[in-house]
């Protein structure tokens, strides 16, 4: 009987090597797999390249992984936020490398990796600093920039519910990068709040089919907290 369900976060993350490229889902706090990140800190892999939209908020989650000194490089679109003090300090001290990517290129480069596409031309960023040194081409009278795929060794994503075949559904805008990151990694680990019997997820509604998911681990539901913006006093 096939079961992708891991008994624990620890079991789901065993063997992640130093120097791995790890995609972490989430947009700010929504969809950030806090339990899996805590497990990665515990697991101990170092010299990681992290792919995330942001670069951590406050002192928890991705910020805690950065603070623990495990990250060599981050590939992201929006590192600087009101509560990105951990990243800001590391960046200013020259202790972390930043590859800044327009958000749509980030999503599409991940999608390309997952779809076996060797890169693509996009008008996004043409003529800007973020396209410097990249191949350009005129297509149909418009200028495009070549962007390459981003592959990962591991993707850590947060879903709402899953089954033992790895089918997943998400919750609201916590979906964000989860479905594309799931396609682009050699090992995709999804945390879920509910594990359902096969067939309980409506096949018309499954967002990530199990082929993209290798391990599913159940974690207790905790309310997602605010992150990444200035709250009115």
């Amino acid at each position: 009987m096939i079961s992708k369900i891991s008994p624990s976060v620890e079991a789901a993350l065993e063997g992640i090597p130093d120097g791995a490229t790890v995609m972490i889902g989430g947009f700010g706090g929504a969809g950030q797999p806090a339990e899996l990140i805590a497990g990665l800190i515990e697991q101990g892999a170092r010299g990681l390249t992290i792919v995330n939209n942001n670069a951590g908020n406050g002192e928890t989650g991705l910020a805690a992984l950065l603070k623990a000194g495990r990250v060599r490089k981050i590939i992201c679109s929006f590192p600087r936020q009101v509560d990105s003090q951990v990243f800001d300090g590391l960046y200013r001290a020259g202790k972390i490398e930043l590859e800044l990517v327009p958000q749509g290129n980030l999503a599409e480069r991940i999608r390309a990796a997952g779809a076996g596409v060797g890169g693509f031309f996009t008008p996004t960023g043409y003529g800007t600093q973020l396209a410097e040194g990249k191949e350009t081409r005129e297509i149909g009278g418009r200028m495009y920039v070549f962007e390459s795929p981003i592959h990962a060794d591991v993707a850590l994503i947060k879903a709402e519910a899953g089954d033992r075949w790895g089918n997943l559904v998400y919750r609201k805008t916590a979906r964000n990068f989860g479905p594309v990151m799931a396609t682009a990694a050699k090992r995709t680990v999804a945390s879920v709040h509910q594990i359902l019997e096969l067939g309980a997820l409506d096949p018309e509604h499954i967002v990530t089919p199990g082929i993209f998911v290798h391990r599913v681990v159940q974690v207790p539901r905790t309310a997602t907290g605010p992150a990444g913006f200035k709250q009115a006093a």
Partner: protein
Amino acid sequence: MDKLNRDQMAARVARDIPEGAYVNLGIGLPTLVANHLPKDREIFLHSENGLLGMGPAPAAGEEDYDLINAGKQPVTLLPGGAYFHHADSFAMMRGGHLDICVLGAFQVSATGDLANWHTGGDAIPAVGGAMDLAIGAKKTYVMMEHLTKSGESKIVAHCSYPLTGIACVSRIYTDLAVIDVTADGLRVVEIFNGLPFDELQRLTGVPLLKEST
């Protein structure tokens, strides 16, 4: 000089957004436009983190931080709204499916170049979806104060800040005027509060064309 305040600017932009438009409102000043959209007009608000049919902020105590906008603030979803993943969301933006995006800016050039993501120097850069929105929507509107705090024109011959996109802006809404970027140059569409054209021209870094009458 009688400038529009931020809410008046937002109301002026809102007036130009038609029924049925798919619209992305950028972070900051453009977000205010949502508060001024007429209730009797159905307009689809898109947020790049993955929702379409975005509704207003939730009542106090009703916040759900799994349901946020691109500024990471809690929002609501209207009946008929949808969630989707990031690649789909950016396909909507990059694939030319949005009718209008409204963005803030540091500078706009006379040919519609946009600078709104980085002040250069040793500031930590962050770009988010700005470059995708700027080149992807059918129309890119900029909403900004006409002048910097020190009184310099934010409409310039050439942007001195790092570019977000080239020749991507179609219309500029400032606290003094509405200006179209055209093949002939910057054409004034409307001047607020009786400011004389010559005075607007004096304050603006590049030649302006008078509104067509």
